[in-house]
């Protein structure tokens, strides 16, 4: 187990910079998720930590030791690939024991470690099968088993679940999390799926365009996004964003948008300043009256909650209500936004005000 720290890490391919000075500190035993849209540089960052990509600038340290010039095999990290990358000519047992075999460990120890990992991952019945004889989920577990047997300082996961179907993905998500709680090995996990990030991470780093937009706990990111990108990226269904302007008089302030006054608690900003107003779907009440008039466009019941698409002055908003709404398309509603959950962003910089 170990801490990991990135200091001003840069990566250039030819002349294009893909990472512009990333600094991150991952604590010992932490489950850290790098999340961001595809092409944002998150996988590159992980591969640099693994030693599969050169570091163009800055330093990466594992357990205080700078590893820029250390070979992959000497970094003591284990990686789970999106494509599993199992050795097709080896059985599950051989796949899992391969790293120990390379280290010339005693065969008895290898056997012991492999069967222990197999027990944790429920792979015992498959130890003598070849990867081609396994299902996707089983292959994924073998890939994890290969990482576990090594007892490395850091686990690296590169979008490990994106090749699985939706149901299996949810199951494996829980398995990986349970595994981490059991082994408590420092983990860096890359995904483009914000739900995966939210459910698994101790802390999340949102990466966009080669920069870290925000680094914090899942709920911190959800409740207090520092900018528009994080606000829109985290949360499903996504946050509603309206264009408007501050209207301040004395202590009370609100945002004027779509011909209505939307309440805020923000203390910054000046009267008349153009802003973007953000509100999560579950922070809009529909039960009251005298609020903002809206018309129901789509009703999507999911059982526990109901997602509504409503229209206010030709702009669509998403609203989530708990329980079942007795509504039909065309019904009129009165929306009551919760001021304390409203976010206001500067439209030019995207920063939270």
């Amino acid at each position, binding site marked *: 187990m170990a801490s990991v720290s990135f200091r001003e890490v840069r990566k250039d391919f030819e002349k294009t910079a893909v990472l512009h000075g990333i600094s991150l500190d991952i604590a010992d035993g932490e489950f850290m998720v790098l999340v961001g849209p595809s092409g944002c540089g998150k996988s590159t960052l992980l591969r640099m930590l693994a030693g599969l990509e050169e570091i163009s600038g800055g330093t990466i340290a594992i357990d205080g030791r700078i590893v820029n010039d250390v070979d992959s*095999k000497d970094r003591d990290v284990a990686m789970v*690939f999106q494509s599993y990358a199992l050795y097709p000519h080896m059985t599950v047992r051989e796949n899992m024991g391969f790293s120990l075999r390379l280290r010339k460990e005693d065969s008895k120890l290898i056997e012991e470690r492999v069967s222990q990992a197999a027990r944790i991952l429920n792979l015992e019945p498959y130890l003598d099968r070849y990867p081609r004889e396994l299902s996707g989920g089983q292959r994924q577990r073998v890939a994890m088993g*290969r990482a576990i047997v090594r007892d490395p300082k850091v686990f690296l996961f590169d979008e490990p679940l994106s090749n699985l179907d939706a149901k299996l993905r949810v199951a494996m998500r829980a398995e990986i999390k349970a595994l981490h709680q059991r082994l408590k090995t420092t983990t860096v996990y890359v995904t483009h799926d914000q739900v995966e990030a939210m459910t698994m991470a101790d802390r999340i780093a949102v990466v966009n365009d080669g920069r870290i937009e925000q680094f914090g706990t899942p709920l911190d990111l959800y409740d207090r996004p520092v900018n528009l990108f994080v606000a829109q990226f985290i949360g499903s269904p996504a946050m509603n964003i309206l264009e408007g302007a501050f209207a301040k008089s004395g202590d009370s302030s609100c945002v004027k948008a779509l011909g209505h006054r939307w309440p805020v608690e923000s203390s910054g900003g000046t009267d008349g300043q153009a802003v973007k107003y953000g509100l999560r779907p579950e922070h809009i009440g529909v039960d009251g009256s005298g609020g903002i008039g809206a018309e129901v466009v789509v009703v999507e019941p999911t059982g526990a909650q109901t997602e509504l698409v409503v229209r206010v002055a030709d702009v669509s908003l998403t609203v989530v209500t708990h329980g079942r709404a007795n509504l039909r398309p065309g019904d009129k509603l009165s929306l009551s936004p919760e001021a304390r959950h409203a976010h206001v962003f500067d439209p030019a910089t995207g920063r939270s005000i």
Partner: protein
Amino acid sequence: MNTRKLRSEAKLWLVAIPILLWTLIPIYHIFLFSISSKDSAFSGALWPDKPTLRNFGTVFRQEHFYLHHFWNQIWNSLWIALAVGAITLAVATCAAFAISRLKVRGGRTVMNAALFTYFIPAAFLAVPMYKAMGAYGLLNSRWSLVLAMVTLASPYAIWVLKQASDKLPWELDEAARIDGATPLQLFRLVYMPLMTPSLVAIGTYAVLLAWNEYLYAFLLLSHENTIPLAVGLGHFLASDDSPWEILMATALIYALPPAAIYYVFRRYMVGGLTSGAVKS
């Protein structure tokens, strides 16, 4: 069967039958000669009156002037073919691994240069090759032919193996590196096992190329004890009255090992030679 299918099959047969005849008639001819006695060999019959296996006996017992070194020469053929196969495989596998997997700087140039040698006809290189072997004092040694054939077989072998190794998933190398494999361990424990079908195909290709070689063998080796059987067979034609029936019996024996090798490895040959032939 509907008429459309019948017609397309008929077209296939129209092509297949001539090709089949074209290939089989000479082989049948060889076979026919080899089981005929000296007198009936030129009778023109489709089957000899008294088929005989005596010709083969004559060959195996080296009972003819041209066959005094038969066992020696077939051993030379075998020795040279296997050596060429082994060395070509070693050279080409290492080259393909270095170019395709280790991404050695200048690898592409090496491969293009190797392929470029095929623009020069082998006959064209014969004289320089003869001079070179002479300079190294290798003339009349089996090694001269081995080295020459490795030179001719390697470019194609490197090319095919490089294409095949490009198809191996890159993540496997990365996984092995993270698992702690050195490049040599990666080569031995991951690369070689996965390349086995292509290696068998290319090895067979090189063995057969060397086994069938005549020109360079004729040129570089001239002593009766060092020449391979292909050249020995050529000597039959030196006399005015060639013993055709014995020549053909020897030729048939000579043709058997390649046929056997091809039969054993046919699965690899088709897959291995075409896989990686086209970039998909």
